């Protein structure tokens, strides 16, 4: 019966001489490959993390710069946006504007009425119909003035008919708009673009609109005890 080590003993001395160096070589090669692969993967993922962090920091720095720049510039104009396109029905302030400006232009206003609200996407609108009586120049002056109204309006229809030598009756339909306010602000890391030239132009136009001068309500007076008139 053959000894179980007989096979090992049978290994030729030539192989025995090469065995240790080859095993060492293979061991080193495998270790080198695995350690390089592992190390490079780790470093590569670190590199990606660094890139992402640098990108985020750049976005945040850019955002901070935009915010700093806009902070002072926009502070005074923000109320104009809310007035120009309110978040609730704008018919009443528009009627106020119509009455004020028609009075200032020396025009007589009649048949003033508002249609019901209609909604398209995020924008609600309502038509305001009215008649203006006066001379042609005053009527056109008024129509031009409507472009300075805040809340903003558009002229949807115009019918002019002569009433007398210099007297005209104008049936006008103005359309008022309003839109709900945005519910969310973008996340901190989200890029914030500065206002474009076109947007700056709109801001400039909006800030020149005439905001209705509503009567401000003063805070409630402190209640004092009423005197007893029978004492």
């Amino acid at each position: 019966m053959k000894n179980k080590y007989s096979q090992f003993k049978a290994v030729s001395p030539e192989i025995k001489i090469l065995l240790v160096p080859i095993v060492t070589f293979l061991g080193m090669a495998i270790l080198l490959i695995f350690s390089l692969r592992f190390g490079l993967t780790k470093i590569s993922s670190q590199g990606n993390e660094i890139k992402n962090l640098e990108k985020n920091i750049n976005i945040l720095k850019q955002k901070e710069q935009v915010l700093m720049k806009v902070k002072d510039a926009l502070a005074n104009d923000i109320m104009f946006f809310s007035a120009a396109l309110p978040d609730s029905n704008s018919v009443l302030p528009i009627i106020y504007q119509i009455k004020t400006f028609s009075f200032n232009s020396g025009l007589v206003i009649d048949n003033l009425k508002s249609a019901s609200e209609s909604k398209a996407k995020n924008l609600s609108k309502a038509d305001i119909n009215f008649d203006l009586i006066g001379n042609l120049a005053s009527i056109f002056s008024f129509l031009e003035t409507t472009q300075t109204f805040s809340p903003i309006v558009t002229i949807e229809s115009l019918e002019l008919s002569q009433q007398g030598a210099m007297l005209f009756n104008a049936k006008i339909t103005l359309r008022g708009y309003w839109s709900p306010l945005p519910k969310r602000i973008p996340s901190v890391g989200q890029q914030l673009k500065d206002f474009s030239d076109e947007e700056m132009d709109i801001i400039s136009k909006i800030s020149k609109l005439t905001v209705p001068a509503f009567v401000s309500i003063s805070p409630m007076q402190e209640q004092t005890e009423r005197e007893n008139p029978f004492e």
Partner: protein
Amino acid sequence: MAKIDLLPKELAPKKNLYKIADIVTKIAYALGGILFISIIVLVIIFILNLGNIKNLKSEEKDSQERVKSYEQTEQQITLAKDRIASIKEIWAMKNITTSLTKIMDFFTFFDENISLKNLKATSSNIEMSIDSVSANSTTIFLGKIISSKIFDSVILKTFSFNPSYGFRIVLELTLK
């Protein structure tokens, strides 16, 4: 003391095998050296990157804090951008507002002999009735409308004469 090799000569390994074994061993040692150096380099890069990441994370946090302090301004910008987009949409809609200047320019064609009877304007066209007491003024007026190029098309719907008011022209003008 002299080395005594008891193996028979025919069983002794070939001499070049020793050389090969020696070369392979040297290569293995070289690989070991490269492995050692690589591990050191990788560890150094890894540690440096860790420090860099730590600094960047801290910088990111600071930036986030600073941006958060401008939350009110960001709200204002969001509101402004939302309103601007809607206002742009409104101003882009076709209505008489955009044609008002053209309608007003049209009145510069009037002279003392021509008067407007009535006018009906919508976003796409204008229909108007004009009275004229002079045939010459009527001709000049119509010539001015055609040469002005304010309107896309000019349709003369009716042209009549009555001794009480003179010429009455009904025009349908399509805006560009």
